[in-house]
């Protein structure tokens, strides 16, 4: 493409944009990683594309990638609000306070913060019950491991990640009493070098299953290089690594939610809400369980998935003790979402997991 065509198309695009400006709803997205991470941010961007597809000319989306969780995030959000965004999705836990701060300055702009817990009149929160997917992972992992060592790459010690570890652990333990979890904290959502190193270390220490709560496909590549190690796609299907090492995955499907919320802004019916959906509502999907998993394990994993989906089983059902042996849930009791000992603020390991939750 030469300079002339670039200029011509830019001019065209600009005139088209200004022509339709008035009736367009502007939606902004703040991403923590690149849209090509193949995981978390990739799925949020799929949601954005679904919004564009659903509303066509009536909507204009913008996004910024690789936004650090901190003051920079506030700058990006402010910039979007000044550019006339009507609705801004901030898609990482660490954007919680920046979102609240910026939202206070722009009362007419609606904000949606993913995986956080601070709401305001113009700030909704939404998250998915990833721990339901983790239950299925633990169920498969516990039966697939031969070394009885399962490696877990954590990002940050926040409730969302700790819920995942606990859920995977109790479901692995239920099918394999000898199972042991080795947990490495990477302190990043997205850093392929660190993630790959962490996966290699876990494999060297005997793990033949690696679960990740970080966003890149680097641990998948490390497991593939090691050979007899299985992994699960995180946030996105990561099907390129199937059928081995990736034997299944947790898929985040934000599209229906993003479309519904954009529609609400268009219709003027948007209110501040707190959404926390799981497998049942379709926000969490379980990726195809690959041929590397024996048929009977696959069948029982799918049965577990279905019971979580229809609500007949809760991933955290008592009797469950905390790591120190004190009772968390009595027999038959299920975990509540909020309040003391609720899932939203979970900051403790369950009985049997070694090590401490870092501060």
């Amino acid at each position, binding site marked *: 493409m030469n300079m002339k065509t670039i200029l011509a198309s830019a001019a065209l695009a600009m005139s088209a944009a200004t022509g339709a400006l008035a009736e367009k709803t502007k939606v902004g997205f703040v991403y923590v990683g*690149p*849209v090509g991470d193949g995981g978390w941010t990739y799925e949020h961007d799929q949601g954005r594309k679904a919004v564009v597809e659903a509303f066509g000319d009536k909507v204009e989306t913008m996004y910024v990638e690789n936004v650090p969780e901190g003051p920079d995030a506030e700058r990006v959000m402010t910039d979007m609000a000044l550019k006339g965004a009507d609705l801004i999705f901030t898609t990482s836990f660490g954007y919680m306070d920046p979102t609240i701060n910026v939202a206070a300055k722009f009362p007419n702009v609606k904000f949606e913060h993913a995986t956080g817990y601070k709401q305001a009149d113009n700030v909704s929160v939404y998250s998915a019950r990833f721990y339901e997917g983790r239950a299925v992972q633990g169920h498969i992992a516990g039966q697939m491991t031969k070394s009885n060592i399962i*490696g877990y790459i954590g990002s940050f010690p926040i409730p969302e990640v700790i819920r995942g570890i606990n859920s995977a652990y109790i479901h692995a333990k239920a099918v394999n009493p000898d199972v042991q979890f080795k947990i490495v904290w990477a*302190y990043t959502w997205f850093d392929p070098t660190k993630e790959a190193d962490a996966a290699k*270390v876990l494999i*060297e*220490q005997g793990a033949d299953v690696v679960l990740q709560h970080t966003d890149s*496909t680097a641990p998948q*590549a490390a497991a593939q290089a090691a050979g007899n190690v299985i992994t699960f796609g995180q946030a996105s299907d990561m099907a390129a690594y199937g059928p081995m090492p990736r034997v299944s995955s947790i898929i985040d499907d934000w599209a229906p939610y993003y479309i519904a919320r954009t529609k609400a802004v268009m219709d003027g019916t948007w209110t501040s809400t707190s959404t926390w959906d799981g497998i049942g509502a379709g926000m969490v999907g379980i990726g195809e369980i690959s041929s590397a998993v024996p048929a009977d394990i696959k069948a029982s994993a799918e049965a577990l998935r279905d019971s979580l989906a229809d609500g007949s089983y809760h991933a955290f059902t008592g009797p469950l003790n905390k790591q120190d042996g004190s009772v968390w849930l009595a027999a038959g009791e299920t975990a509540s979402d909020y309040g003391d000992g609720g899932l939203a603020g979970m900051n403790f390991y369950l009985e049997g997991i*070694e090590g401490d939750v870092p501060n």
Partner: protein
Amino acid sequence: MDLSSISPTLLVASLMVAATPILLASIGELVVEKSGVLNLGVEGMMIIGAIAGFAAAVGTGSPIIGFLCAALGGAALSLVFALLTQFFLSNQVATGLALTLFGLGLSALMGQSYIGIKPPASAKLDLPVISDIPILGPVLFSHDTTVYVALALVAGVWWFLKYTRGGLILRAVGESHDAAHALGYKVVKVRIMAIMFGGACAGLGGAALSLVRVPQWTEGMTAGAGWIALAIVVFASWKPARVLLGAYLFGGVAVLQLNLQAAGVSIPVEYLSMSPYLITIIVLVVMSAHRNKAALNAPAALGRAFHASR
């Protein structure tokens, strides 16, 4: 805590892999500094090598072509530095810093369409029988080819600097460019060649990261490796064998901290993560305490511009 789960054999084997990118970059920078030029652009040249190598390997399906392009890319970027500092006599520190910033930005632009792609696998040494020897096999005979290339480069640079006429000239240029010039040596030419060698090595180091160690492309994936490479050259007091030691020490700390975590040692991660940098500071402090000795080892004309006025 279960330290027995850390296998010393595998720890050594993986630290060799982890150290290879910084080893390559620092052996190149050693040659540059030995010629009297301080190029702070290692980080920038590494990341250009990382993306150039990655793009070429993905495009052609051949990791070898990838590595060649990485070396070319790093050398090409270093040529910008050479032009500015050797012909226009710009300040080496400022130019080097600019080179890093430029490399980081340019690589991000070049890498836009390569995010999330899998590169072709590069060849691993797999000798029948020998690679299966316990302990020695995994440590010495089953690595990726780049690990051996890096070791060969260190040996080659040591031999070149110590035993060849070319090495003597290079060191003469680095110690006193005026004297070398008076003897009839082409100071600028020697330095440009050294700078390009340094760029090519840094490029290879970057490709070792994006094609072997991770293997994936991400913006800013060198994450400070170039700065560590610079520190290692000083740490090693400009001696090739000590560069090897320094690089393995750094690689070792990085791998060890993850191993300790996985083994359940309850040391806060922050301490472990900062330990490589802490060691650098300690080493620099210890070295500068013995001022004469350290100063004697640094090339005397390091960082000084040369203009043939006579």
